[in-house]
């Protein structure tokens, strides 16, 4: 006989997995918009708004479970982690929207030299890989997979700092490109941070250990 609480936890888990998949699509689409200069802003906005709403619903659900079942031990850790992860997903979607906004308002990377677009494409591949890792480790509560994110997190951080150094050395042709590329890279780096937070939450919910993967 399963516990009544398990039904609620399962519902919450399904909600989060659905959010995870939608965030992946949202981030992919906003990056694609920048790299191929296509109009995706209004679509990304819709998806992002939807995700913020879903995060709100997930948070309500966690409150309901706490109020009704007074969860303890791994149940309590799971609920706390799910609450945080729902927020991380909402942040993913907001950064995706920010990236899309840069493209819409400043023309994105249109005025940039080829190496800049290539650099950002390479970095975005790493970030998308991290987002995927966060979603998959959450789905299976896989701590080994969660731990593996630390390496890519380090690489993304390095790419972010290296890019700033490169710009200081040699400014891009236009200030539009400078501003757009720096902001996009900054948002990508923030997405990577949230992917890492999610992996840390997965480890916490499964083991009770607080680990820093950054």
């Amino acid at each position: 006989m399963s516990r009544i609480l398990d039904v609620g936890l399962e519902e919450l888990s399904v909600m989060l997995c659905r959010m995870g998949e939608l965030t992946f699509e949202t981030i992919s689409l906003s990056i694609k918009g920048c790299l191929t200069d296509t109009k995706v802003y209004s679509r990304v906005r819709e998806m992002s708004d939807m995700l913020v709403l879903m995060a709100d619903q997930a948070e309500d659900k966690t409150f309901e479970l706490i109020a009704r079942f007074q969860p303890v031990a791994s149940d309590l850790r799971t609920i706390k982690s799910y609450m945080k992860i729902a927020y991380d997903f909402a942040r993913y979607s907001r950064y995706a929207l920010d990236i899309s906004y840069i493209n819409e308002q400043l023309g994105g990377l249109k005025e940039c030299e080829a190496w800049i677009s290539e650099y950002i494409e390479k970095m975005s591949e790493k970030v998308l890989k991290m987002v995927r890792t966060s979603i998959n480790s959450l789905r299976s509560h896989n701590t080994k997979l969660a731990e593996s994110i630390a390496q890519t997190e380090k690489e993304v951080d390095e790419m972010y700092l290296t890019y700033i150094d490169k710009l200081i050395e040699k400014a891009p042709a236009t200030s539009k490109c400078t501003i757009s590329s720096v902001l996009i890279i900054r948002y990508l780096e923030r997405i990577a941070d949230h992917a890492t937070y999610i992996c840390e939450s997965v480890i916490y919910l499964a083991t009770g250990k607080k680990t820093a993967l950054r």
Partner: protein
Amino acid sequence: MSYKIEIQDLNAWFGKKHVLQDITMKIKENVVTAIIGPSGCGKTTLIRCLNRMHELTPGAKVAGKILLDGEDIYDEKVDPVTIRRRIGMVFQKPNPFPMMSIYDNAAAGLRLNGVTDKHRLDEVVEKSLRVAHLWDEVKTELGKSGASLSGGQQQRLCIARALAIEPEVILMDEPTSALDPTAAAKIEQLIRILIEDYTVIIVTHNMQQAARVSDFTAFLYLGKLVEYGSTKDIFENPKSELTEKYITGEFG
């Protein structure tokens, strides 16, 4: 923080049945320690060993040491009555003496100990009833029967009765399981106040009560101490799988 009670390799039997096995734990002073575990795990036996009540049951036996302020309460030179005076007990069902008035219930312990001075009795009865947060509700009807009170009031009267002989430790065996939620909440609040002056050890079936009211929690299973630690650690991050399963309701 110092230890009020140190239990060392405690074993207890009912006839051939070995109900407590090698229990070792140190209980801090002026805190609430909760003992949890499924029915029959030895919770009640454990606290009954702490004030030498276990041995009152025919066929019951105890081995090991229990130090109260460093002194073994099972030492042959120790008088069990003295121990029971220093370590009071409140039971599951409120059990005021039914033929006695509220006043006489609160004064019963003192009278048994030979106190007859009316002024002294008045003083202690009022103080105990105040500490038990019952005084305001009964001060105008102290002559009424203890049995005329509500369940929650009766339980607070029993706490007052225990307090009147000025114990150092108060043992509570499921003190709220016969009470409605409001009366139970009052007892829980009272327990938190009592630890300013006393050390409280509570046996409870209600895990949420242990989580709310205690500072330390011990989990007993089949007569063994499985896990003992701060209530925060036990309820957020228990070390033992068995504890995890019990407190999350997977068994018990």
